[in-house]
């Protein structure tokens, strides 16, 4: 773990017509860290995460990438998005493309890699997750856990510096949760910088370098998992007592 801050939210605000979903949130993310965001439903975790890669346009504050504010032209936002991958709760694979095409299309289209290289890398990634034989298959032929692992690999194919996960296992049948979590653990161990929103507290406690507790759009407390889970804040205590 270095001291270099890759990604940083400063006083980030996202207001919807009816409410402030994210309320002046500041959070630095250092290279190689796995930051896990937990908190009650509706507390703004997803909205915050989506502000980090501009899927939601923040209404206040700023997001800094390597110290530079992300803003302005859609071209520069696009460039930034190539560096920050995202994995969704519902996988969002492209159903009309094969698994291989799902992985290679973006690096080739955005000019990151020539086609041959992209295919070679994709095969390598698929071998690593044991799905090389599915390269020519379509997403509909895969199980949920396999789909999510492909989605993670698809994000990795862009050579991102940060990966964002929004509840990557909550749409999965219980027996498939493990395989996805194992892959995420491997990535964390290899030093991938990750920001993860999850309700799987046990998994978070095991993998997280930092755990962030959000409530009503604000970060209530940040700390090592063991510290946060024994917080004196009654709201946090209450939350953990219910989910564990």
């Amino acid at each position: 773990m270095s001291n270099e801050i890759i990604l940083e939210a400063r006083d980030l605000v996202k207001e919807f017509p009816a409410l402030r979903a994210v309320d002046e949130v500041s959070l630095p993310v250092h290279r190689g860290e796995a930051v896990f965001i937990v908190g009650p439903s509706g507390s703004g975790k997803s909205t915050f995460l989506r502000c980090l890669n501009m899927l939601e346009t923040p209404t206040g504050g700023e997001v800094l990438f390597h110290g530079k504010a992300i803003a302005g032209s859609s071209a520069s936002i696009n460039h930034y998005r190539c560096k920050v991958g995202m994995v969704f709760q519902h996988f969002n694979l492209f159903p009309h493309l094969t698994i291989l095409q799902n992985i290679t299309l973006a690096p080739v289209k955005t000019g990151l890699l020539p086609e041959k290289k992209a295919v070679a890398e994709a095969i390598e990634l698929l071998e690593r997750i044991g799905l090389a034989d599915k390269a020519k298959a379509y997403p509909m032929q895969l199980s949920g856990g396999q789909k999510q692992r492909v989605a993670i690999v698809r994000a990795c194919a862009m050579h991102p510096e940060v990966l964002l996960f929004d509840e990557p296992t909550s749409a999965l049948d219980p027996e498939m949760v493990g395989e996805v979590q194992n892959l995420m653990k491997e990535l964390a161990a290899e030093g991938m910088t990750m920001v993860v929103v999850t309700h799987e507290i046990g998994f978070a406690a095991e993998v997280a370098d930092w755990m962030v507790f959000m409530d009503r759009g604000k970060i209530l407390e940040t700390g090592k998992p063991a510290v946060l889970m024994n917080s004196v804040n009654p709201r946090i205590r209450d939350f953990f007592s219910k989910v564990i």
Partner: protein
Amino acid sequence: MTFFMVSALVFTLSAADAVKRFTVGFDANFPPYGYVENGEYRGFDLDLAREVAKRNNWQIVLKPINWDAKDSELNSGMIDCIWNGFTINGRENSYTWSDPYVVNEQVVIVKDDSPLRKLADLKGKKVAVQTDTPVQKALKKGGERYDLGRTLSELVVVPDYNNAVMMLEAGSVDAIAMDIGVAKEKSKKGGLLILDEIVMSENYGIGFRKGDTKLRDIVQNTLLEMIDDGTAARISARYFDGKNVVALGRIKSAVSEDANVSGAGFWDNAGVVTLELLKGLLVSMAIFFLTLLFALPLGLLVACFRMSGNFLLRNFFRIFISVMRGTPLMLQLLVWFFGPYYLFGIQLSKLSLFGIDYRFIAVIIGFSLNYAAYFAEIYRAGISSIPRGQYEAACVLGYTRSQTFFRIVLPQVVKRILPPVTNEVITLVKDTSLAFSLAVLEMFTIAKQIASASSTMLPFIIAGVFYYLFNFIVAGVMSAIEKKLNYYR
């Protein structure tokens, strides 16, 4: 009990007996013989028919008919006769005729500023005729005035005289050949001139169901009475000013009652008809493919504008779609065709492109824009049915907006909209027949012409088979595409 039933029966019978109904079929678009004025049926023939009914103590029923269906109306007993400036010449054997009561001339009208003055001047010109009229038959190949017809550059067959006059005014045809009674009526409003030289003359009679000589004789005798006592002349004076227009009198009929029915066998006939229809089918297919060629991409463009963030653009195309879907295609075709002349005074003959008549171009414009509107709504539904996650996934992978649309969204939209598009495409096959309203000779137009000329349903049956086969192939192709796209869900 029995008594009541019997008396009720007697009552019904005597009521039916007391007033015989005399049902006259006519084309309500044929002034001055039969037309609508202030919501009432008027006309020379209708007044004659009323008088005949009155003198026989009949209750008259005036029944406007679809001219193409006149034979079915008569043969099925829906009407008792066709009394409608009805030309005997060429139809001698199809009906039981009264003696001719009008000798009518077929003339040519032109715009009064036109240099055309003689029939010989029509050489190389476009002349309009109404579909299934004697003058159309006469000018056609094999007709008695083919000597004149062959000199024309084109014989334009139009659905009705109003259409023909609009085309003449708009410069899309140079002249119209028509019945002198109608010509006088049309030239009343000015700007039109009737050439002195006539194309031919013909006899009008009353057409009865073949073999119904009993009714024919009663009507004919009453009519003769009316001619003798001057009633017919008085009625004539209401509708015709020039006395040489209609020669009313006893004219010996050239009609022979027992002439035998057309000798050509059913199957000989079918061959000729099929060949004619195949020519029309080519035109129908041209309309079909050109419409798809333009409307499919245009629809996508319209859908994009319809979903645009720009308020003006979005609402302009919302209105465009609503107008295109909310008005009849036939009306739109008329607007595209006549619009340039009536709105901007452009002579339509100048609008032809690469030698393609503007009528056909107007059909393609009308069809393409109309179908583009339908396709646009299908595309729009398809595009909005793509889950947001697909856009977000593409977005976070760094795709640009156009890459997202063409690589991720559109391929999925195509698969989803295939069933509704198939429906539209099949409707289009059948809609091509609407080109009739601009006198484009596609298959259905030709079927109608042959059918009314030969008094058989055969051309319709054959045309129906062709439409079905065409659609069968279209449906087959579409389901093959659907299968091909079935590799994913």
